[in-house]
């Protein structure tokens, strides 16, 4: 259902265009602008000197400078001094992507006594000089627009205070499998009280059910027993089994978990929550590779139990097993089905089971019907070992999967061998083992709705960013570890839950924590509490409150994630995200469109290569041409070049090393004092 079209109140389009009127703020009057050369990464394509002169004429701009490296210590010191001397009330830094140095320059502002949110970062490297290095002139024009937009935006910037809250030094860990148990130990050792909440009667989850584990050869149950013994010795860990998580309220630093243990209802006060609820094994459908149609088709988990419990001979249903066919990727990598992902651990698990069979029983033949073998990392040794034992590997493709049929009381497999001209093979085996993948737990919807953790298209819990924030969720204070996030083996599960444990400790350690104030806010004058914002908010951050005799929306700043979904659905435009206000966004658009009078001097430089030396440096940075023309027939050291060109020596060092690698210059021995290398042009 669309939140925008669902309007019973016959809202016309003009409502969506009403300008936000409240929150009038004083425009910034004294702005400092710093445009970075990035040692040539920007200035080779964008004419930063010309831009800084142009920008100096802008209204409200007090200082406009081009700097070699904006992030260098010396430039940072200059900025602090400028802010103080010139009484700047806002700064704009035009350099690289905000992902790299936002905190650097926010800290510059803080050191100078300026509010860190009165600074705007403009990306003129990744989104300008590099992206348009083919068209330096156009890149310069675009950079001008980008910087203008940054100045416009910073004019509307508001001084914001971080939201400070007290944090309970206690953590709720949901799920006492190996990930949760191991994380609980570390969290407790770091000085937090841990409530380890387990739904089942016993701790240990899937690992406790496993037999021999691959690589170490230990028994899963032994590993869990050892870990549980350790947990029982730590007084800071309270374990609840047979426990159900009923309700979660509160927010980061101060959650209340309502948990029922048998008939007892408990309220646990925690600062953060770690979710380690694990996975379910994929259950093959009836008839999938003969499952449930033939008694001789079982899952890998059933097979592992059989290996464990059989002695001397491998016997199933009273029949001796002399041949086993493993069918891989059952319930995984379904290009047309629900589970598009690879379950990571099943190739290794199946091969490991096959090796266990060889170790315990003799004379069992193994056929592995696989799509691709993914025994990554050290697990490759399992594959090597299994091949050496004579296991037969047959590659099939998803579009032509193996068929399992019962003919004359025999379980017959028919498969096209993709590595032998799709030759059709047909053979009978005593047992078919379905190598099933991992799926999200059947109760994961319940957990995700209570904790409001978003799930991905694979229905596993979603992290904020797979590389940069791999254990954080968008819910502040709620972290994920282990296989509730997606398929992992035991090692990877424990790695991720320990990463989450240390992340949790960093936020709870101080006892207080600061949140970024990028949240929604409501215009009390115009808000009519139509509930549309609350209806789309997935974080329960908006509740009604009475104000001046009418109901209006109120935002809980510690649960609001600042996504802005509430903004476009408001018929009276009464809710907005700070730093993304109409004024800020629309003034940026205006800034992009300002016409620039840029001189086209750059093109002429392309041809002025020094004194007849036929070095084609057109495609290379401008500074290379300058170095080449300075060297000419001479040999010079870096300090000499630095003086001659007026370029910092560390920048020159970097470029000379690169030029040396490209065969433009070469070293020419040491200077008289044997202090510096001399460089000359390579003939």
């Amino acid at each position, binding site marked *: 259902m669309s939140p925008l079209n669902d309007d019973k109140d016959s809202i016309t389009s003009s409502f969506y265009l009403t300008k936000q009127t409240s929150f009038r703020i004083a425009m910034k009057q004294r702005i400092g602008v710093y445009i970075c050369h990035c040692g040539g990464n920007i200035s080779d394509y964008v004419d930063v000197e010309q831009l800084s002169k142009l920008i100096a004429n802008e209204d409200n701009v007090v200082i406009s400078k081009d700097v070699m490296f904006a992030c260098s210590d010396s430039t940072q010191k200059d900025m602090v001094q400028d802010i103080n001397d010139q009484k700047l009330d806002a700064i704009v830094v035009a350099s690289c992507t*905000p992902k790299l140095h936002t905190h650097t320059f926010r800290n510059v502002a803080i050191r100078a006594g300026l509010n860190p949110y009165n600074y705007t970062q403009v990306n003129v490297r990744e989104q300008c000089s590099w992206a348009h*290095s083919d068209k330096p002139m156009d890149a310069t024009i675009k950079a001008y627009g980008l910087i203008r937009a940054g100045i416009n935006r910073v004019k509307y910037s508001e001084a914001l205070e971080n939201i400070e809250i007290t944090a309970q030094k206690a953590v709720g860990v949901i799920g006492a499998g190996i990930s949760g148990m191991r994380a609980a130990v570390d969290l407790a050792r770091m000085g937090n009280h841990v409530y380890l909440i387990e739904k089942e009667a016993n701790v240990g989850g899937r690992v406790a059910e496993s037999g021999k584990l691959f690589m170490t050869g230990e028994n899963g149950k032994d590993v869990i027993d050892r870990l549980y013994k350790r947990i029982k010795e730590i007084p800071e860990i309270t374990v609840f089994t047979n426990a159900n998580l009923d309700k979660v309220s509160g927010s980061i630093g101060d959650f209340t978990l309502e948990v029922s243990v048998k008939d007892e209802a408990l309220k646990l006060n925690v600062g953060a929550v770690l979710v380690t609820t694990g996975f379910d094994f994929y259950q093959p459908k009836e008839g999938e590779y003969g499952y449930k149609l033939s008694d001789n088709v079982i899952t890998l988990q059933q097979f592992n139990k059989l290996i464990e419990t059989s002695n001397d001979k491998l016997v199933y249903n009273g029949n001796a097993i002399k041949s086993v066919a493993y069918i891989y990727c059952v319930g995984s990598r379904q290009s047309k089905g629900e589970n598009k992902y690879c379950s990571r651990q099943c190739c290794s698990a199946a091969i490991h089971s096959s090796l266990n069979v060889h170790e315990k029983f003799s004379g069992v033949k193994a056929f592995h019907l696989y799509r691709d073998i993914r025994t990554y990392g050290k697990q490759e040794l399992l594959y090597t070992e299994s091949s050496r034992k004579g296991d037969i590997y047959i590659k099939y493709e998803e579009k032509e999967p193996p068929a399992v049929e019962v003919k004359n009381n025999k379980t017959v497999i028919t498969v096209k061998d993709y590595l032998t001209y799709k030759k059709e093979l047909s053979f009978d085996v005593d047992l078919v083992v379905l190598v099933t993948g991992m799926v999200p737990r059947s109760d994961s919807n319940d957990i995700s709705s209570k904790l409001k953790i978003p799930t991905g298209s694979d229905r596993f819990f979603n992290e904020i960013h797979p590389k940069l924030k791999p254990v954080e969720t968008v819910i502040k204070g709620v972290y994920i570890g282990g296989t509730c996030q997606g398929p992992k083996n035991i090692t990877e599960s424990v790695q991720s839950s320990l990463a989450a444990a240390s992340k949790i400790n960093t936020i709870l350690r101080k006892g207080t924590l600061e949140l970024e104030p990028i949240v929604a806010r409501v215009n009390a004058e115009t808000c009519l509490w139509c509930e549309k914002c609350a209806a789309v908010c997935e974080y329960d951050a908006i509740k009604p409150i009475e104000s001046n005799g009418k109901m209006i929306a109120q935002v809980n700043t510690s649960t609001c994630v600042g996504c802005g*979904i509430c903004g*476009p659905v408001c018929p009276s435009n009464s809710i907005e995200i700070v730093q993304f206000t109409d004024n800020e*966004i629309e003034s940026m658009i205006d800034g*992009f469109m300002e016409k620039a009078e840029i001189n086209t001097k750059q093109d002429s430089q392309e041809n002025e290569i020094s004194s007849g030396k036929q070095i084609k440096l057109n495609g290379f940075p401008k500074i290379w041409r300058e170095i080449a023309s300075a060297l000419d027939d001479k040999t010079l050291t870096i300090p000499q070049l630095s003086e001659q060109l007026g370029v910092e020596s560390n920048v020159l060092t970097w470029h000379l090393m690169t030029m040396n690698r490209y065969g433009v210059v070469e070293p020419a021995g040491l200077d008289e004092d044997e202090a510096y290398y001399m460089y000359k042009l390579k003939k």
Partner: protein
Amino acid sequence: METQEFKPRILVFSTDKISDPGIDQAGLRKIHYSPSVYTISIPCSSGIKPRWILHAFEQGFDGVFIAADGTECSYSSKCSEHTNSIIVEAQKIMKERNINTKRIRMAAICSVCAEPFVNHISTFSKILQDLGSIKNEIAEHKAPSLS
């Protein structure tokens, strides 16, 4: 100085956690695209107000491209749905003002989607080139200004 070839100006709304890194990567790998493309980053494409889109057209942008997170959005599993209804709403207003609704386009751009981004932009540029400058449409039908 207008040159003979019409280069459409495109405003991109991209998300700071997912699409931005994808667009940054196009720059990092020097996969070139039109320099008349300008990007504004926002937390989530579900937060784009239709009035911002209209403002862009009024200021002379020939097209608006929404680089959405699609199913990767970390805020909402219904992100595409929300973003889509914003586009529908914006298109309603565009129709009222005789602005061609093809001037707005959405695609999911992931954090490593450098090539897809550049491809989308070049396809979109071609569409906009055929439509011509926004100025013609805005001039034909003088709409009351915003605010």
